[in-house]
Structures are given as structure tokens and as C-alpha cells.
């Protein structure tokens, strides 16, 4: 699914040069829930940006589904993000002037292959499953942090992306809300075989990940868990072949909203 080789990313020049990523090679299988961990400044965000096609590597290659994404034009990358990737930010990054429902719909509205009826139905199902159906017409400013992050996740999966990226999605949340978000990720992963790459620096999050990739000073410290995770990933692959547009049977449900 994702194949990166010898990825290097440097910022600045000369004296001020910083090697944010220093020769990272990694493979991520379809259906895996991978956690990228490491201390602050170790290059986690940089790696996720590169994988999410939000930035270019200084050298090295990134292949997603066999496509060398570094060779894509700007427009192709935008389309790649729209059709294949979902991204969740630490600070939710919702559009403040849009309601919950509108925020979730937004990426789907731009897809040429989706009708309005289709994505309103998908949005409705997602809203139910994240437990925010009652709040569908609220603005971001009327939601708690946990609720906002669940909306952001809903927005990221409305287009049934091949890969979901999340950069410290729980960093601004308390433990209870963090668990809720992590449970949501786990359910999406288990029930839909959604490939998820999530950045975190909280050790207790590891219990949710199939595999943990540790970074330090831009270098991979261990990624050895891959072998162990592989059989499970393969099993999930089949699951993912089901109808990706059908959310009704997904059952990613969260009970009455506690936050």
C-alpha cells in the first residue's frame, strides 16, 4: 500500500540546515493501523506531511498503491488527496463558518463521481455513527474539542479514502475524549479495513495500534512489529473489498455523547 525508501527531508540551508528525516524506509500494508511515535521534534509530522502529499521530500521515493507520488503534478496531487487520502489534524481544522454537516460533506461535494444524494446519505450515516446527528447543524464554536475532532475524522473518511492520516489527533483532548477518538479509529480500522497512519507521543495509545513505528532524530528506531501484524492485515484486506460507499452497515457507533 505505502512503500517509502530512504526518505530524506532537510529544512533550511548551510549552517541552519535541519535534517527532519534522515533516511527513513518503511512499508505499510493495506488495513494496518500504524502508530508513528517518537519524541517532539523527531520528524513525525514531517513524515506524515510527506505521506499525505502535503510536502516534497528532499530525496527518496514514496509509492502509494504503486504510484510514485513524488512525480505527480500539483493538480494530480490535489486529486490524489481528494480521491484517495484523508487527513486529520491536531487542531481539528474545521471550517468555522460551516456547520458540522457541511464540514463533513465538503470533500464529498467536490468528487466528480459522487451524487448529492449519495454523499448526504453517507454524511447522515457517519453523523449517526460518531454520535453527532443531533448536532449536525451546529457550528464548530458550539462543540467541545472531542466533538470537533470526531467531526474532523468524519470529514476525513466521508470519501472512503484508501489511507487515513492523523497527526496527534488526541493532543488537545483529555483522556476520556482521547479514548473515544481512538475507539472510533479502531472501529473504522476493524470494520472497514481502513488503513490508518496516526502520529502520537502518548505511550498508552500503543494498545490501539497494530504496529508502532518509532522515530528519533529523523531516523527509524524500530519498525520490527511489521512481521507480526502482517497476517491480520492480510485478513482485513478482504474485508476492505466490500462496498466502500456503504456506511449503513459499518456500525462504528459511539454511545450517547459524553463530552
Amino acid at each position, binding site marked *: 500500500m505505502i512503500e517509502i525508501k530512504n526518505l530524506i527531508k532537510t529544512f533550511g540551508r548551510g549552517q541552519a540546515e535541519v535534517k527532519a528525516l534522515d533516511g527513513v524506509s518503511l512499508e505499510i500494508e493495506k488495513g494496518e493501523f500504524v502508530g508513528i511515535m517518537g519524541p517532539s521534534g523527531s520528524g513525525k509530522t514531517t513524515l506524515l506531511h510527506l505521506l499525505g502529499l*502535503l510536502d516534497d521530500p528532499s530525496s527518496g521515493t514514496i509509492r502509494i498503491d504503486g504510484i510514485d507520488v513524488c512525480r505527480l503534478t500539483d493538480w494530480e496531487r490535489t486529486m490524489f488527496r481528494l480521491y484517495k487520502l484523508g487527513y486529520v489534524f491536531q487542531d481539528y481544522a474545521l*471550517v468555522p*463558518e460551516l456547520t458540522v454537516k457541511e464540514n463533513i460533506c*465538503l*470533500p464529498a*461535494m*467536490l468528487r*466528480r463521481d459522487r451524487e448529492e444524494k449519495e454523499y448526504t446519505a453517507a454524511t447522515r450515516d457517519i453523523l449517526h455513527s460518531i454520535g453527532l446527528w443531533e448536532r449536525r447543524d451546529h457550528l464548530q464554536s458550539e462543540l467541545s474539542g472531542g466533538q470537533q475532532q470526531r467531526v474532523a475524522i468524519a470529514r476525513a473518511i466521508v470519501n472512503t479514502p484508501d489511507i487515513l492520516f492523523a497527526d496527534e489527533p488526541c493532543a488537545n483532548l483529555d483522556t476520556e475524549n482521547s479514548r473515544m477518538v481512538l475507539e472510533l479509529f479502531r472501529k473504522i480500522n476493524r470494520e472497514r479495513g481502513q488503513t490508518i497512519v496516526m502520529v502520537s507521543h502518548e505511550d498508552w495509545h500503543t494498545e490501539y495500534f497494530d504496529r508502532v513505528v518509532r522515530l528519533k532524530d529523523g531516523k527509524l528506531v524500530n519498525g520490527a512489529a511489521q512481521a507480526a501484524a502482517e497476517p491480520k492485515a492480510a485478513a482485513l484486506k478482504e474485508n476492505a473489498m466490500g462496498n466502500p460507499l456503504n456506511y449503513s452497515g459499518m456500525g462504528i457507533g459511539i454511545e450517547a455523547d459524553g463530552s
Partner: protein
Amino acid sequence: MAQKELKVAFFLAWRSLVRGNRSSVLLNILIIGMVFTNMMFFPSLMAGIGVDIKDQIVSYQTSNIMIGPASGEQYITDIETTLAKINRLPGVERATPHYQTGATLQSRGRLIPATIGAIQPREEQYVSPLHTTMIAGSYLGESDVGEAIIGVSLAGSPNIREEDEVRPSLGGVRVGDSIQVEYPNGVEKEYRLKGIFQTGNFEMDNRMIVSWEDMQDVVGEPLTFAPYITVRVKPGYSESFVKNEILRYGVREQVQTTDDLLNKEIGRVMASFSIIGFISMIVSLVIAVVVLFIVVMVKTINNRRQIGILKAIGVEQSVIMNSYGFQVVLLSIAGILVGFLFTGLIVLYMTYYPMVTPEFSATPYVTPLDLAVNGIILFLASVISGYLPAWKVSRENIRQVLQA
């Protein structure tokens, strides 16, 4: 760019305007409205002055068409025949002869020079609204001899001292007072003041008017000649049509429409008015462009991270640019409509309280074409100045924008 993308861009723009900062939206609309009003005001006031001056000249000086003596002559001779000929033409309301001379006026110990005009009072009513402008006493009768009416400026005011006057007057003469007149041919005559008129026309309000009968006495022979004839055109006929008619029916005198005269006399003044109007429009436009440019610039800079996020979730650059562009489009449409309203209110106000000077009393003259042209110019300028920063920021590298 397909319909879907435009729809999303418009959706984002609309939501941002409606759910965003109210007061900033209203302020932007107000600014555009003011700029539009500013673009309209000065040029239309200039146009209004032009219209008023023309109106005055038509009403009190030349009427629609003025006929002067053939070249080399001092007078139109045999006016009886000429008038009869012209009055028969289609499109002619009435033609009347005018005579005028300089004279010295004396009253209440003041001695001043003035122009005295002679009219045929009954006929003149069809050509000029003079008879409707009497503010004291009454209009001249057909055979009034030894009686005169004078303009309000010439009559003067008892409250202004002689040495303070801009233009000499008779210091506040009243109806019934007597005025001594000495004509250039030596004739001296005493007139009783029958009425005072106020036309708003500077020339006219400094004149004394007597009847044709009276002037015959002064000249000492029947007035069958005149320096000029004025012709009032019937409503619905154009001045140039009637002018051609007059020429075709064998009038050999010099025939000029008001426009012919105006082009010579005040054409140059109007040209410089329109240059001033043009400059004021350009200044207003520059203000609009700069204001909108800054507004959108600030908006996009404040929203840089937001723009990065939209790009990150797969929203195309052109959708983002258009979402800001559409905001400017909507703001300028609203602003221009507010500008229409302001302009309308100013025109309405100045219809009741016009700008009055001794030379003119002006109300802004606004045509639908002016509104449309200025609206379109402002609209285009706004859209360009709004799209520019939107285009710039939407092109920026995502990572840089995200870290903003």
C-alpha cells in the same frame, strides 16, 4: 472549471460572508457604496450644472433657436414677415422679437449702467417662463408705456451698502418707485417700477425689461427691426429639425440652436468640467481598488492556515481562489446597490435643496446609463483587486501555509 467546483466555491464564499464577521462585511459594503457615490456625485453635479445652465439659457436668453441678422447686418429687418413665416412652420410653438440696449439707470441717488430689453409681453409668454417668475408687483402688459419690470439682482437690497456690492444695484427699489433712465440716443425717460422678477439666471436678473411699445417711443420710429428673434420649439420636435425647417423656408438670417450656441460659448467650460469629473472618478476607483485589495489580502492572510487545510483535504486551488473571488463579487454587488441608494438619496435631497450660486442652481444629473457604466467599472475594478491576493495565497506551498 466545472460546475461542481464553482458551486462549492460559491457555497464557501456565501457561508463565509453570512456566518463570518458581520460588521466587517457591512463595513466593506459601506465602503464600496461610498466609493460608488463618490464616483457618481461630482461628475453628475457637473452634468447637473450644465443642464441647469442650458435650461436657463433656453428659458431666458436664446430659447430653443435664436435667429440673428444675416452677416454684415446689424438687425433683422421686416420682422413682421419673418415672424409670420416662422410661426407657420410645424414644430414652432412661437417666435418673438427681442431688442436690447444699454442705458444709465438712476434711483434713490444711485446711478448705474444696465441692459434694458424690450419684449412683446403677450407673445413672450409662449417663449419664456419670465411671467411666472414675478416676486413682487406684476408682469408687463402689452401696451404698458412708462412702466418697467426689473430683475431681483438689479433691484438690489436696502441692507447691502453700495460699496459692498459685487455688482451695482438700485439699492432695494420697490414696486411703485420711479427710475430715471438715460438712453444712449439722448432720450431721458421716467419709469414706474411695475414688478420685480427672479429667474435664477444671472444675466436676466440684472436686466430691466420694457414693452415693445415703450421701446418704439424711445427709438423714435416703429420697431420693424430687431437684433434677434427667439423661437420656442413645440414639445416632441427637435431643435435641429425646426432649424432646418426655418432655413428651408427661406429665412436668410443666421439660425442657431441652443446646442450650436452652447458648443461655442460654454463648450470649453463643459469640457473642463468633464475632465475634473473624470479625475474624480479615477481617484474614487483607486480608493476602491486599494481598499478591496487590502480587505482580501487581510482576509487571506488571516485565513492562511484555513486555506492550507482546505488544500490538504483535496480542495483545488481554483476553488479556494474563487471562494474569495466570489466574496468580493458579492460584496461589490451589494456595495454598488448601496451606492445606487446613496446616490438616489443625494439626488432626492438636492432636488429640494439644490446647490445655489448666482450663476446656477444645480441638482446632480444622473442617467441610468451613468449608473450602469460606473457600476460596471467599479465592479470590474473590485473583482480584479479582490482576485489578485486570492490567487496569490491560493498558490502558496501547502506546508508553508499550514505552518502559518
